[in-house]
């Protein structure tokens, strides 16, 4: 099966420094791809390249075979949905209004009843229905993150009528969430990839290595703008590799058959020079 979204030798530089130097990454339907790496490794830049927000200065990114800059914005909105890291609003929008923005480009022609139902179902999936009429600006960081997840679900669902080969991109989606909602969000993302009809391709940036190990079908390790390793979790979860990338000594244990990553002491020096 050919990939839905592909980066080939893609690179992006600013201020004379390559944030992503060269990246080869293919996103397939039904696969949950997790990107891990230390701060400044280029994770968000990679996601922004794949989403079409940034245009690579080297190599290319293609969606269903088409190079990204040539795909119109509204059509990209049907093929890939992004939940970005920050999502502050300048105005006192209600929660349900923010979620309804997901329908903006792709669902305009839907009757109002269907649009309302879409928004409602998305709010319920993100456990935000009870706060549907709250001013978004007054929510906590975690609640805001859940609203944005609901918005992403809403766009995904509305766009499914146009394009069934969809990619969902999540940039640190659980950074502010409590434990219960961390699992709920990741479960929901995984369920999308396991959907029998038109399974979604998910690309998620995570900091929690245990969650990454728990949910990833395909694990990508980014270091200094380069993909240090990628593959199935079992191949990538290597103590030496992770110690080298994160500069922290790790033990990988097994608990009920699942890998558990236990950070030990700081490894000094990181790179003996």
């Amino acid at each position: 099966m050919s990939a839905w979204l592909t980066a080939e030798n893609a690179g992006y530089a600013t201020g004379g420094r390559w944030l992503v130097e060269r990246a080869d990454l293919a996103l397939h339907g039904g696969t949950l791809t997790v990107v891990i790496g230390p701060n400044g490794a280029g994770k968000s830049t990679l996601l922004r390249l794949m989403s079409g927000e940034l245009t690579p200065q080297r190599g290319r990114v293609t969606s269903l075979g088409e190079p990204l800059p040539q795909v119109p914005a509204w059509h990209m909105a049907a093929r890939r949905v992004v939940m970005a890291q920050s999502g502050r609003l300048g105005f006192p929008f209600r929660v349900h209004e923010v979620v309804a923005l997901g329908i903006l480009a792709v669902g305009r022609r839907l009757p109002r009843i269907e649009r309302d139902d879409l928004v409602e179902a998305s709010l319920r999936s993100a456990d935000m229905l009870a706060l549907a009429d709250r001013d978004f600006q007054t929510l906590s960081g975690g609640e805001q993150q859940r609203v944005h997840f609901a918005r992403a679900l809403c766009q995904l669902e509305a766009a499914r009528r146009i394009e069934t080969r969809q990619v969902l991109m999540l940039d640190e989606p659980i950074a502010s969430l409590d434990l219960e909602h961390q699992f709920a969000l990741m479960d929901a993302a995984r369920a999308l990839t396991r959907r029998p009809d038109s399974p979604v391709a998910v690309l998620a940036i995570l900091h929690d290595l245990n969650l990454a190990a728990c949910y990833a079908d395909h694990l990508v390790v980014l270091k200094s703008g380069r993909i240090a390793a990628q593959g199935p979790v079992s191949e990538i979860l290597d103590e030496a590799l992770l110690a080298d990338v994160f500069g922290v000594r790790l033990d990988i244990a097994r608990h009920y058959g699942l890998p558990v990553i236990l950070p030990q002491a700081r490894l000094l020096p990181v790179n003996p020079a």
Partner: protein
Amino acid sequence: MRKACEPAPSGSGRGGVVAFLGTARHRRAMLWATLGGALLAGLFLLSLFKGAVALPAGSLLKTLGGLLGDGSLPDTREALILANIRLPRTLLAMLVGAALAVSGAMLQGLFRNPLADPGLIGVSAGAALAAGITIVFGEKLLAPAFGRMPFAMLPLGAFVGGLGSTLILYGIATRAGRTSIATMMLAGVALGALSGALSGFLAYLSDDRQLRDLTFWALGSFSGASWTKLAAVAPAMIAILVAAPFLARGLDALALGEAEAYHLGLPVQRVKAAAILIAAVAVGASVAVAGMIGFVGLVVPHVLRLLLGASHRLLLPFSALGGAVLLLGADIVARLVVAPAELPIGILTAAIGAPFFLWLLLRRQARPFE
């Protein structure tokens, strides 16, 4: 998958929370539209009645009826005042108020900040400077050819000035898709001061009549309203008032940020360009016929957000209504407080608007600038 315990809201016909909220908002909007419409109609009549010359209500209504009926106009002093002074002035105040409030709402959406106002961020000053340049130099250059400068030059000049200052401001305040509010306000103040200084310099180059015109521009007034002025700006203003609501969804999406708006499928550059153009046309046309009138674009959208929420689908049309109400009301007050003389309306809106702006700043201290 609807929960059984959710109460079915009465009247909506369906059980959904979101559908219920939508219906409630629609009802609220209808209520405010009715109230606002009634208020505007009342002010419209009041504006025809009240002024330096008292017009008896009976003859006024008869004249108005004749004018609307068969277009006839009795040859009396009252009828002339009504038809040639009060009516164009009333219509102009409503149009300018609507245009300024809509442009304020658009600029705020564009800059993603509720503190943007064409007066505060130097757009009006830029338009006034360009209008001043047109007055002082335009006449020298064009008078030999046309006898007198064609009036249409003024709105055109003011529009170019408004567009220029908006573009400069946006260029300065926006880096890599992020608009810095602090930079925008400071650059706006600097641009406004520069435009003011250049306008002041123009005063030295102008003759007496031009100087009076320039002063009129700086303070803002509807005292020079005429059918000619109305005809010069009404088409553009009505066009932008009709066009503005089409940008509502785009401005809603831009509230999330430019990258997010692109992710949602918005052609960001096109929407931004359209919003800048509309705001510049509105401010330029307003400044050309009424001078600089500040704070309308700040106060009206802000109050409306409190009443109706932030969604631009309601905000833009209601801004037009609210702006018309506010400026027509202010013009009536300006005509009455020192009658038979009148106050420049810009003084009045600043006297209301500046304290309101300060109150906004104080209220926002809990949630400081980004």
